């Protein structure tokens, strides 16, 4: 709002502020001064009257414009259409979300139930049956590695802190304790050895190292080859490090095997096939070289 003092040349000045006066945009004090001037100035009063009349005429003329009676109905219809479209979109989104949720649940259930529940640690019979079922699809020579992994690594409760290095060396024995640095050197970051020992399962002697990374177990299982046992007849997964590696999946397990002179070696885990094969490829050269020296 504007407050203006009018003095000499008041008519000229007041005309400049008549627009704001007509629009009621002047301060009360300025309004009073304009009014005082208008009382004594017929010319400015006439000008004000003309402007006010024009304003009133304009308002009356514009407001005389007829509004189509159906306009409101058209607007409401357009909004209704938008609403129903919004509901349809929202409905579609709800259905999409519901479908996604169902698919997620279904996949979850499938993963849960396809990964057969483990038997209790004390239930040897159920464990034996579990190993048989899990191994059933594998070639016999690969069943050797999977059986020991499940029996010895999966059906086990681990202490929070892994055994000390010397304890694991002792359990491996002097002939095989040299495996520990070989394995440590070849394993990807994140894996730690949580168990290393010699064990017996299903009438065989094993060298067994178990590694863990974020709750995922991986075993290096080594056993002496029995007469006639060979992996050569199996489809090779590749020779990424110069060693022929054979890999098969059995349920949620991946079993990679390679031959090392008189020994059979296995990398078994519940990782994806590619990850298991990569680790096997990394371990195979060093482990095979170690076993060759051990046999000599």
């Amino acid at each position, binding site marked *: 709002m504007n407050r203006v003092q009018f003095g000499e040349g008041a*008519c000229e000045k007041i*005309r400049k502020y008549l*627009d*704001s006066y007509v*629009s009621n*945009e002047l301060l009360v004090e300025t309004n009073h001064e304009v009014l005082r001037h208008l009382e004594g*100035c*017929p*010319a*400015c009063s*006439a*000008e004000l*009257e*003309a*402007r006010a*009349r*024009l*304003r009133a*005429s*304009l*308002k*009356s*003329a*514009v*407001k*005389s*414009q007829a*509004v*189509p009676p159906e*306009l*409101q109905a*058209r*607007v409401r219809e*357009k*909004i209704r259409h*938008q*609403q129903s479209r919004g*509901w349809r979109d*929202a409905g579609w989104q709800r259905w999409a979300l519901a479908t996604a949720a169902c698919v997620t649940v279904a996949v979850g259930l499938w993963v849960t139930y396809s990964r057969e529940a483990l038997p209790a640690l004390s239930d040897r019979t159920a464990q034996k049956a579990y190993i048989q079922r899990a191994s059933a699809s594998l070639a016999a020579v690969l069943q050797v590695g999977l059986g020991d992994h499940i029996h010895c690594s999966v059906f086990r409760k681990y202490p929070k802190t892994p055994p000390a290095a010397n304890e694991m060396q002792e359990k491996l024995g002097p002939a095989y304790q040299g495996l520990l640095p070989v394995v440590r050197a070849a394993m990807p970051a994140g894996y730690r050895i949580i168990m290393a020992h010699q064990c017996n399962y299903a009438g065989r002697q094993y060298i067994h190292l178990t590694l863990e990374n974020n709750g995922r177990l991986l075993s290096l299982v080594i056993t002496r080859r029995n007469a006639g046992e060979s992996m050569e007849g199996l489809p090779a997964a590749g020779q990424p490090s110069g060693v022929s590696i054979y890999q098969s999946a059995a349920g949620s397990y991946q079993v990679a095997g390679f031959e090392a002179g008189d020994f059979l070696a296995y990398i078994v885990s519940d990782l994806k096939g590619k990850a298991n094969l990569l680790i096997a490829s990394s371990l195979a050269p060093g482990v095979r070289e170690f076993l060759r020296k051990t046999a000599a």
Partner: protein
Amino acid sequence: MLFSSRRRTSDFEAAAMPHMNDIYRTAVRLLGSSAAADDVVQDVFLQAWKSFGQFQLGTNCRAWLFKILFHTIHHYRRKWMNVRILKDSEEILEHAAAGSPPLPEHITDADVLAALAEVPEEFRAVVLLVDVEEFSYKEAAGIANVPIGTVMSRLSRGRKLLRERLAGLARSYGIGDITEEGQSA
């Protein structure tokens, strides 16, 4: 969700729909076409409905709707029309009378509307907002998205142009009874 939608509809009906006639009449005067105004008003209210969640109930819904109207018309013109508004305005202002021309004694609504149609749009818009819809300078500035000073100058020029057009119209009709008190002192 259904309840909130019904509530929103009833709020919108109460706050926005009563202003439809004012919006339509302003749109007609700005666009110069009833059919175009009809389309624009539907778009304005649809846009208002979509944005109604952002509108704070109790604040000036009428000014909010007019702001949407101006925004919609701006886009409408850019999309469908090729108007040299600024140049036309400058040309017209160059020929605008320095003083206040006399106002015809008897003027009809049709005369006023015909004269108004000849006032360039940016001046016409401010005249409509302030003189017809009685928005304050501040509100008009917000609606037209210009500074208050621009509102004041456009209003002054717009009123003068309107008066000049009306006087010219009266002369073209051969109307002689023009009030002389409107002459500059």
